[in-house]
C-alpha cells in the first residue's frame, strides 16, 4: 500500500527555526494500537486455552503451538515474498493461529494443523490484502477448508483417554447416546473442538473483551439470542435450547469469530444485522441442514454478505435529512 506523507502546511523558506516540526493537527494520539488490541484478544483466549489443555491434555497444547507457529511463519513468509513490510509483531497471526487450534478436534494430526494455518493466513488473509482487507475470518475459512478436505478426521472427537465421543449436538440430532449434564456443558468436558469445551471460560474472555472495548457486547448477545429464538420457532424443544447455546461452538463463534473486525461490517448497525444473520443461519443449519453445529458456515456466509450490509447501513451523517 502506498502511504502518502502528510507533511508541511506552509513553505518554511523564511523559517527562523526550521528545527520545529510542522504537521497538520491533531498533535496527540491515543494509546490504542493494533498490537494492543490483538494482545487483548490473546489474553481473552487464555481461559479457553487452559480449559482445552485441561480437558484434552497434551494434544491440545500441541495443536495450539503448531497452529500459532505455523500462522506466524506463514505470515512472515508471504509478506517477505510479496515484498511487504513484515508485521508479524502486530500479533494478528497469533490470534488466527490460536483460533484455528481451538476450532480443531483434539485428535487432529499435526500436518492438518500446519496446512490449516498456512491456508488461513496465505489464501484467506494475505491474498486478499492482509490485515483489515480479508473478507473472511482466516481461522474459520481454514476450518472450512479442512472440513471439506478431511471430513471424517475433522468430525472425530476424541477425549484424552482415546474414547471417541459424539458432540452433544450430534447426540441431539441423532437421538441416541447419552447427553452430558448441563453443568458439564457449562464448565467443560464435552465432546467437540478443543476450544468449545467450556462455555464459562469462553464467557470470561468475552466479558474481558467487552470491558476493554475491543468488541461490542451486542454482537455475541444478539447472535446467541437470535439462534435460540429461531430454534424455538423451528420447533426445537425448550429443554434442548440450553445445549444449543452452550454447545456446537456457538460461544466460541459468537464471541471470537463473529466479532472479527475485518470480516464483519464496520458500522455498528451493520454489526447488529450481521449478528442476527449469523443467528438465523446457525439455527437453520442445525435444524434443517446436515450440519449439527452450523456456526462455521453461518459466519462464513455472513462474512461474504458483510460488504453489502456495510453499504446498506451507512450511518446517517449529522444533520442529514433523507
Amino acid at each position, binding site marked *: 500500500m502506498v502511504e502518502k506523507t502528510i507533511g508541511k502546511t506552509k513553505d518554511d523558506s523564511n*523559517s527562523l527555526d526550521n528545527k520545529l516540526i510542522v504537521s497538520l493537527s491533531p*498533535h496527540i*494520539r491515543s494509546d490504542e494500537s493494533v498490537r494492543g488490541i490483538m494482545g487483548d484478544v490473546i489474553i481473552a483466549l487464555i481461559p479457553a486455552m487452559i480449559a482445552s489443555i485441561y480437558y484434552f491434555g497434551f494434544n491440545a497444547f500441541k495443536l495450539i503451538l503448531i497452529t500459532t507457529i505455523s500462522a506466524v511463519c506463514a505470515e512472515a513468509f508471504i509478506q517477505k515474498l510479496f515484498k511487504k513490510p513484515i508485521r508479524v509483531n502486530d500479533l494478528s497471526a497469533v490470534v488466527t493461529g490460536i483460533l484455528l487450534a481451538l476450532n480443531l478436534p483434539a485428535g487432529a494430526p499435526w500436518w492438518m494443523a500446519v496446512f490449516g494455518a498456512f491456508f488461513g493466513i496465505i489464501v484467506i488473509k494475505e491474498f486478499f490484502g492482509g490485515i483489515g482487507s480479508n473478507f473472511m475470518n482466516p481461522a474459520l475459512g481454514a476450518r472450512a477448508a479442512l472440513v471439506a478436505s478431511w471430513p471424517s478426521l475433522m468430525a472425530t472427537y476424541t477425549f484424552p483417554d482415546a474414547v471417541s465421543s459424539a458432540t452433544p449436538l450430534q447426540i441431539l440430532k441423532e437421538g441416541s447416546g447419552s447427553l452430558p449434564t448441563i453443568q458439564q456443558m457449562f464448565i467443560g468436558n464435552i465432546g467437540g473442538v478443543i476450544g468449545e469445551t467450556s462455555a464459562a471460560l469462553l464467557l470470561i474472555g468475552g466479558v474481558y473483551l467487552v470491558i476493554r472495548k475491543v468488541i461490542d457486547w451486542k454482537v455475541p448477545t444478539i447472535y446467541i439470542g437470535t439462534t435460540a429464538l429461531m430454534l424455538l420457532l423451528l420447533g426445537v424443544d425448550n429443554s434442548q435450547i440450553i445445549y444449543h447455546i452452550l454447545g456446537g461452538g456457538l460461544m466460541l463463534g459468537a464471541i471470537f469469530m463473529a466479532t472479527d473486525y475485518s470480516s464483519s461490517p464496520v458500522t455498528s448497525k451493520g454489526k447488529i444485522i450481521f449478528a442476527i444473520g449469523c443467528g438465523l443461519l446457525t439455527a437453520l443449519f442445525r435444524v434443517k441442514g446436515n450440519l449439527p453445529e452450523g456456526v462455521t458456515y453461518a459466519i462464513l456466509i455472513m462474512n461474504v454478505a458483510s460488504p453489502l450490509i456495510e453499504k446498506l447501513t451507512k450511518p446517517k451523517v449529522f444533520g*442529514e435529512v433523507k
Partner: protein
Amino acid sequence: MDLGKLTFKGGASIPEFKELTSKNPVEVLKSPKIVYIPLHQHSGSPCEPLVNVGDVVKIGQKIGSSNAFVSSSIHSSVSGVVKEISTIYTPTGIKSKCVVIENDGMDEMIESIKERSLEYYKREEIISTLKEMGIVGMGGASFPTHVKFSPPEDKKIDILIINGAECEPYITADHRLMLENTKDIVSGIKVAMKALNTEKAYIGIEDNKPDAIEAMKKELAGEKNIEVAILKTKYPQGDEKRIIDAITNRKVPLGGLPMDVGCVVSNVATIKAINDAILKGKPLYERIVTVTGSVNNPKNLLVRIGTPIEDLIEACGGFKGKPGKIIIGGPMMGIAQFDLKTPIVKGSNGVLVQALDEIKNEEVLPCIKCGKCIDVCPSRLEPLFISSYSLKDNYSKCDELNALACVECGACSYICPAKRPLAESIKIAKREITAKRKKS
C-alpha cells in the same frame, strides 16, 4: 429546568492536562517592545492599513479597516511608532499585511475609550460598533461577530448559546475568564441578546469545570432568561453544531448554519470582548492565552494582540527540554508553527509546546476496520473510507461521502489504533473539494 450532563452522540474522552494551568490566575504579560499586528486576523476580507510608517499610534487606535461587510477592524495594542508595514504569516497560515509598531512603553490610551450603558444603544448601533471595535469569534474560526449577529430577516434567532465548553485539552483560558470575569460575561450576554433580539440564552460549560459552573450560576441567580447548561466532558463538545445539539436537541442541517435552527453560538471570550466594546468602548486588542506544555512555568497570560510567541514562552520560564513542536491553539485542532516570531492574534487561545522527545513518530499501519473512527466522529462520517479515497486522490468520492461535513476535530486520527492520518487526509480532501467548487 435542570440542565445536567448534556451531550451529543459520538466523541472521545481525551486526557486533559488542564491541571497544568487551571489554577493559575491570569497574569498580565508586559507589553512587548515590538508588536506585529496582522491585518487579516478574521475570516473574510483583509483590512487595509490606515497608518503609515512613522505615524504615532495609541492603544486602541484603529490601524486597519475594510469596507467589505465580512471583515473586522484592527487596532493597535500598544502606544508607539509604526516602524514598518510588512508581510507575515498569521498563525493560521494566511499571508497577511502586518503593521509593525515599536512600543514606547507609555501605554497611552486613545481618548475615545468611554463607558456607555446599554440603554443608549439601538440594535443596529450595537452591530456596527462590533465591526468598528474589531470583535470576532475568539474560539478559533475568528468569524466577524457583527456578521454572525446579522442573520437574514427570515431567520429568527430564539436561542443564544454561550460556548464555555473549552473541550480542547490543555487550554484553560476560557475557564479562567469565567472565574475571573464572571460579571462581564453576564453583562456581555445581555448585550448580545439585545443585539440578536433574543429572549433566551444558555451558557454551556463542561462538567470538568465545577468552579466555573458554580461561579456562573451564582452570578446568574435571579436571571430568568439566562441559564447554565452543564455539559458532559467529551471531545469535541465545544463544536458549534454539537453544543447546539446537546443543549437544544436541534440538529443543524447538513451544510447549514446554526441560524437555520434559530441559534447563534458565541464563545465566552467573545462575549467578554463584546461587553468591553459596547459598554466600555474598548476595542479588541488583547486576549487571554494559555501557555502550556513543555515550558517551565505554564501560565494564563493576558497578551496584547501582535505579541510574538517567543515573548510568551520567555514569560513562562522558557522551554522545558528541547522543543519539538509549537502549537497555537490546543493539541487537537491547533496549528503547528514554524516561526517563534509568529504573533498572537484574536483567535489564539493557547500556545502549547511539545518537547521533541514527547513527539512519537508512530508507524502508520493498514486499517484494521475496527470502526472506532466512526464511533467517535461527531459528524457521523466514515473517516476510514473518506481518508482512503483522499489518499488515492479520489476527491469526488470524498465529496460523495460528505467530507465537507467534517469539522476537523481530529478525534478520528486520535483514536485510530493503526495511527492512520485520517483527519489530516480528510482536511486535504476538503480543500480540494472547495477549490474545485469555487472554480466551477
